[in-house]
């Protein structure tokens, strides 16, 4: 399992993942349709903002925020914990363990290869954002775009690793799907997906700043809508990557402990 062979295998892994994504395109469309929640929240918050802005959010800011939320979600969603659960229970994980590439890398490649297809769904929304004239909220500074790139990569990695860690719990507790559900519920409320973080009361915001969720959606969205200046942005990104590191360590530990005790059930 040397580094060189892993790097050589990566293009193939990505290609296979992409082909799978194209093969099951109907499923992918359903996935994308099930992330349309930001539009509903946009309708709701627009109704709230009809008679005056909420905080700093007027009609335009809200539109920019929730369109950005949709786009960020397309790039950062991960379903890997469902797959790990399935593979552990059906024993198909054994085949993966035999391959000369670490399964975590293979999973990451699979998730990453779908991103271009999902980006296709984000494209019309970006056009819509331009047509609605909310593009004014996008950052002008090229450095801010670089910051956004770092933040969105961090958000993807955080989403993947948390999903992976929860998937690995299935080694011990038979099925961790429900843990993932709890995680998702927290994610929806605390990430800025339904309610912009800024609109929470101050005490709640302090708590949310310390939780990992807002770094998965809230941070990239805020950077895309220029809610922070550069210094503040880098500070938040530092916290995001601290969470990435924490989840990387946790995932590695859970994976090691899990594979030691793993025995294939099916055939």
């Amino acid at each position, binding site marked *: 399992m040397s580094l060189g062979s892993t790097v050589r295998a990566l293009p193939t892994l990505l290609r296979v993942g992409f082909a799978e994504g194209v093969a099951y395109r109907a499923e992918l469309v*359903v*996935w994308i349709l099930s992330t349309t929640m930001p539009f509903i929240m946009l*309708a709701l918050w627009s109704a709230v903002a009809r008679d005056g802005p909420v905080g700093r959010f007027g009609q335009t800011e809200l539109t920019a925020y929730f369109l950005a939320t949709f786009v960020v979600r397309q790039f950062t969603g991960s379903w890997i914990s469902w797959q790990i659960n399935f593979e552990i229970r059906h024993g198909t994980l054994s085949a993966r363990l035999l391959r000369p590439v670490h399964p975590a890398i293979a999973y990451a490649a699979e998730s990453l290869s779908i991103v271009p297809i999902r980006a296709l769904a984000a494209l019309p929304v970006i056009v819509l954002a331009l047509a609605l004239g909310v593009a004014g909220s996008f950052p002008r500074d090229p450095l801010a775009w670089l910051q956004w790139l770092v933040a969105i990569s961090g958000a993807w990695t955080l989403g993947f690793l948390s999903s992976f860690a929860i998937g690995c719990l299935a080694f011990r507790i*038979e099925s961790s799907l429900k843990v993932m559900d709890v995680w998702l519920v927290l994610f929806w409320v605390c990430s800025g997906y339904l*309610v912009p973080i800024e609109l929470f009361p101050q005490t709640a915001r302090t708590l949310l700043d310390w939780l990992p969720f807002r770094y998965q959606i809230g941070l990239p969205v805020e950077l895309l809508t220029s809610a922070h200046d550069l210094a503040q942005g880098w500070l938040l990104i530092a916290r995001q990557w601290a969470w990435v590191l924490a989840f990387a360590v946790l995932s590695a530990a859970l994976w090691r402990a899990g594979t030691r005790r793993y025995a294939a059930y099916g055939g």
Partner: protein
Amino acid sequence: MRRYLRLLGIQLRTSFLGLVQYRFDFVVEGALEVFWAITALIPLLVVFGSRESVAGWTFPEALLVTGWFLLLQGILEGAINPSLSSVVDHIRKGTLDFVLLKPADAQFLVSTAQFRPWRATNLLSAAIVFGYAFHLLGRTPSLAGVGAALLLLGASTLLLYSMWILTVSAAFYVVRVDNLTHLFSSIFDAARWPSSVFRGTISFLFTFVVPIALMTTYPALALLGRLSAATLALALGGAVVFSALSRYVWLRSIARYTSASS
């Protein structure tokens, strides 16, 4: 009829046993229920933290809509959704053959294949939300209002079930659709808000195509005594027509089923 009731009892028992099998999941599911109820309220609290009324709804009135949402979510995720994944699996693997061979109506069998009794806690949280809302309003609903709301509850259950049957029918045409449940619940999530929040195309969509307005907003209006008799009659009629349509589509789709493998 008696035979079908007995079958329902058996199906309920097997899904309960299947549930206890994964003990940890079973415990977490209980905690999850409480979570769901609370998260349904958080956006509402934040929204009404900055406004007295939104789209013509005050906080206690909007709470009623959320209450109906919790109630229907309990029904949807406890009795309707769980079977979906199992049918889709059956269709893909071709094991639906075994269901079709059984001497009972296939639609009945697949719809009762799995239940999640835990979801009944949703009914409790809905009751608490209703109680609190009427406490804030400082009055009790009229008897006629409650009657109309109960009729609408029946209608919306029927509607949810019919939409579910239509979704399953789609699985005969587009095979791999394991995540339809996610789509289903994410659309249904819009029902937690009063329908007057939505405007234009979305509003039309949620009233006539995916009748979410009918499921939560109308019953809340009925409890408040603001729903006209004509709207009630239309809603009930619509639900019956919709369910007849879904039965027809189911029969058409099942006729098209050809075993996958074996």
